[in-house]
């Protein structure tokens, strides 16, 4: 599948198709990547898809814990929608939803977070501040995954897709951090270069 735009998308898939289409057109290259691609791009994007799924899982758990005030909750819900779109766009780029993936468990999510230096426990979300701190760390993890992917992807069109998503993660980081720190720009936009957390 190229450009990931074809008749037959469900309503849920349309935003992802639009993302893939727009970015493919902007980059002048297909955004879909064949399994077993010699470049390894398929494998790289499969890795970022795993991270994005963990991100979605954590957002869902944070919302379910109910420690967020109305304003923060609205922002977190909006971002969760974005993260779900990232997952859907990646699935399209990789050739469709991967139904064979094992479901994410608490233990698996915590292992993944620790692997990327996110120390907060999903079981210790007593306050809004704890919850937002975890989500900021999770966004750093996603930024790092995308940054590492861009440095390895061979197809320019895929790098453009990755950069647009990575920039979205950076915006999430800023929006979440701003809630905790009263919009202080020195804290919510601290550095001139965004590379995310290490571990990739």
């Amino acid at each position, binding site marked *: 599948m190229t450009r990931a735009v074809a008749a037959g998308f469900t309503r849920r898939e349309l935003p992802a198709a639009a993302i893939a289409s727009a970015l493919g057109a902007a980059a002048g290259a297909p955004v879909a990547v064949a399994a077993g691609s010699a470049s390894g791009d398929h494998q790289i994007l499969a890795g970022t898809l795993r991270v994005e799924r963990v991100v979605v899982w954590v957002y869902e758990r944070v919302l379910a814990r109910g420690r967020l005030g109305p304003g923060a909750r609205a922002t977190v819900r*909006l971002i969760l929608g974005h993260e779900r779109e990232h997952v859907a766009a990646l699935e399209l780029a990789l050739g469709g939803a991967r139904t064979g993936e094992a479901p994410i468990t608490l233990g698996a999510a915590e292992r993944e977070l620790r692997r990327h230096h996110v120390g907060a426990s999903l079981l210790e979300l007593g306050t809004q501040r704890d919850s937002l701190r975890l989500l900021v760390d999770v966004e750093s993890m996603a930024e790092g995954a995308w940054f590492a992917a861009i440095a390895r992807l061979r197809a320019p069109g895929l790098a453009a897709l990755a950069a647009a998503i990575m920039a979205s993660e950076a915006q999430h980081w800023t929006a979440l951090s701003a809630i905790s720190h009263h919009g202080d720009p020195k804290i919510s936009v601290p550095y001139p270069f965004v590379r995310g957390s290490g571990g990739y």
Partner: protein
Amino acid sequence: MVSRVLSRRGAIAGAAAALAGCSTKYRPSNVPLTPHTPGAAADLVILDRLLFHERYAIAAYSAAIPRLSRPAARAAVQFLAHELAHASELEGLIAQAGGKPARPPAFYDLGRPEDERQLLGLLHAAERAQLRAYLDAVGRLTPARLRAAAAAILANEAQHTTVLRGELGLEPLPSAVVSAGE
């Protein structure tokens, strides 16, 4: 409330700040880029274009900051420091690729913003132009690690855009992927 338009003097001051900010000594980046790297000549053109946009943004922030209210000015000062760092990084990459950064123009046309909202609009427009340029660049630069270096700056510009959109009363997170339309 800003009652004066951006004068030629103010705009020139911005340009001077851009020049001064970009004259700092740059350190070699960790991007493996030399004059012999495949695609270096084409990449130089792209990097020079990015530098133009950074310098325009530096001029815009420099001219706007004295006329912004305190909360907006605080963010703008922070973002100006970022833009200066980006310009320095780009100058270093251009030098690594065997090029010489173009001389900045003596004057930037920043329009005639008359109040704080229009000043923020000017900054927002400068950031959007950068988003467009970096999104295009990431899809065209040759070495993957150079694309990653551009993406690291793009993500920071996207953060600026989020804050500026908030200041303008717009949705700070308009879509799931960053685009030049933000």
